[in-house]
């Protein structure tokens, strides 16, 4: 397998989807002439033309809503929102229309749309450009929420997302775009299951997206001290793969959850609740988690670093759970 960047894998997936299905088109701010704010769509305007690679005005609500309407009427839109921070301007369309249309029409109207957006902090972009809001979206029935953490998933998740009859949101942690890895086989990627990224027997580290790298680094450090951590990459944030969560827990009986969202009302909280509901008797120790601090992400580098999950914080949390 050749190595690609996460960005190239995503671009390749978009290109393939557009080549294979004429109904697929992509729209968003600066996806065309600018070349994509993270260069994911670079070159696609030249290849597919302005009908299918559509630069939109700065109108998140309107173009996301238009994507929803188009999806209701037989095409397959990929809507790109620059970052999840700006997706709040489209939240009404996503929540009140995309997520509800099938239900409130009694099953008549469906919205097979894919909405991609960047997420996450770590680049000193401060409090309006750095947040991780995927956990919010994972709250909403009617949506499927994906968080590709590897190059293989970046390349492989879009196809099944477009094939899905319902709205799918893809959160791409912006720090991953330059990561390289094996391209993988897109045909083998599903959008239902979590994946074990590292086998282990002493403790489970459950994470997703941009935190996977930090978590694997933490597992490596723990291994140096004779602690054998298993790392579970959730991949799909809604619906959660409860079976995979309970299976790793049954194996290790201890767990730390790593989530770049804020702690209160977070995805990590939901995972803890499910473990307590369904796996309480398998636990040998209290659950722990590493989240972002309860503060808008600050600009200053040292404060931002302190606000976000880190390998060190994960190691410390794991040791605390293990009592060593």
């Amino acid at each position, binding site marked *: 397998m050749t190595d690609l960047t996460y960005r190239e894998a995503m671009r390749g997936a978009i290109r393939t989807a557009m080549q294979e299905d004429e109904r697929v088109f992509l729209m968003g701010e600066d996806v065309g002439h600018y070349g994509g704010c993270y260069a994911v769509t670079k070159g696609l305007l030249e290849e597919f033309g302005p009908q299918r690679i559509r630069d939109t*005005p700065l109108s998140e*609500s309107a173009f996301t809503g238009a994507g929803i309407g188009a999806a209701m009427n037989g095409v397959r839109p990929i809507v790109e929102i620059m970052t999840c921070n700006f997706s709040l*301007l489209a939240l009404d369309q996503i929540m009140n229309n995309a997520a509800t249309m099938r239900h409130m029409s009694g099953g008549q109207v469906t919205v097979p749309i894919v909405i991609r957006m960047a997420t996450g902090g770590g680049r000193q972009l401060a409090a309006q450009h750095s947040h991780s809001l995927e956990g919010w979206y994972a709250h909403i029935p009617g949506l499927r929420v994906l968080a590709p953490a590897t190059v293989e998933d970046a390349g492989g998740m879009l196809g099944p997302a477009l094939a899905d009859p319902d709205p799918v949101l893809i959160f791409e942690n912006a720090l991953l775009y330059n990561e390289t890895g094996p391209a993988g086989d897109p045909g083998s990627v599903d959008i239902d299951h979590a994946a074990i990224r590292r086998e282990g027997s002493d403790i489970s580290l459950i994470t997703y997206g941009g935190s996977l790298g930090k978590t694997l680094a933490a597992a490596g450090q723990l291994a140096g001290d004779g602690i054998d951590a298993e790392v579970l990459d959730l991949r799909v944030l809604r619906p959660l793969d409860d079976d995979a969560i309970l299976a790793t827990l049954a194996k290790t009986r201890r767990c730390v959850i790593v989530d770049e969202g804020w702690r209160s009302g977070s995805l990590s909280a939901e995972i803890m609740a499910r473990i307590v509901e369904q796996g309480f008797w398998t636990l040998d120790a209290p659950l722990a988690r590493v989240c972002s601090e309860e503060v808008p992400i600050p600009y200053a580098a040292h404060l931002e670093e*302190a606000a976000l999950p880190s390998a060190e914080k994960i190691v410390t949390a794991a040791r605390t759970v293990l009592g060593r």
Partner: protein
Amino acid sequence: MSGNPAKVRLSREHCRTLLHQMLRIRRFEEKCAELYTQEKIRGFLHLYIGEEAVAVGVMQALAPEDAVVATYREHGHALMKGVPADTIMAEMFGKQEGCSGGRGGSMHLFDTEHRFYGGNAIVAGGLPIAAGLALADTLADRSRITTCFFGEGAVAEGEFHEALNLAALWQLPVLFVCENNLYAMGTALDLSESQTDISAKAACYDIASEAVDGMDVVAVEVAARRAVAAIHETGRPRFLECRTYRFRAHSMYDPQLYRAKEEVEAWKERGPIRRFKTWAFEAGELRESDVAEIEAEIAREIDQAVAFAQDGTWEPVADLTRHVGAERRP
């Protein structure tokens, strides 16, 4: 020079001020670019180079008690509103002596003492805020105005339309200033607007509007003075579109695939500083020696700002969760 000299006294002193302020912003921005490559400034950095005449011209018409709301491209506006270069620079270094305590950075300069309300990096996010600031003044019967700067890209957002309607409906003392530099990142105006005459949009909310050459500092000042006087007189909002151009990249990451070098060069020919200087020299209002003096003054100010930022301190990590809510509650 266009404009209405009857309303602006182009005394030698005033000419010197206009040139000084435009050059001050230019040199400040150039220093920021340099400090960015040295990684002293991080994150996103949006420079105002080429657009100086807008902030400088408009601010001539504002009083210290008037409020300003700006975007992420706001260093020049902050400087013009009286925020010290020292604390602006320290903010960009992320130091706690910065005007936002190091929490905001380049995109989020705040200084309430100077009634500078950001530094908003959500496109069009500042417009409703400006309406609200003005609403409070109206409710408290204070005769001061709020000026809101934004790019033409913001005009496509719902918040633009909602805020204009509200300001007109409730008769709020807001001066809306659209800095039309023809591109929103890489999206040209005619690719984002069905009606590219922006000032016409204000008209459909029954807001009196004017479009002005934003490369002509005097024309901007004249138009701004007229608008501010009208706001005070009528208590209603006004709209000013300043046609300008950004000489540099959108931010430091932009390869500028969307516009031709020749286009940029052509606009630089009509750059606001070059143009005003030429006029002022020809009119005998300013001499080379004035420029040399101004440059020296600016260099001193900027050197001092950089030193201030460099000597600034990092906020202790223990304070991380400060400024989320009030420290003391009643």
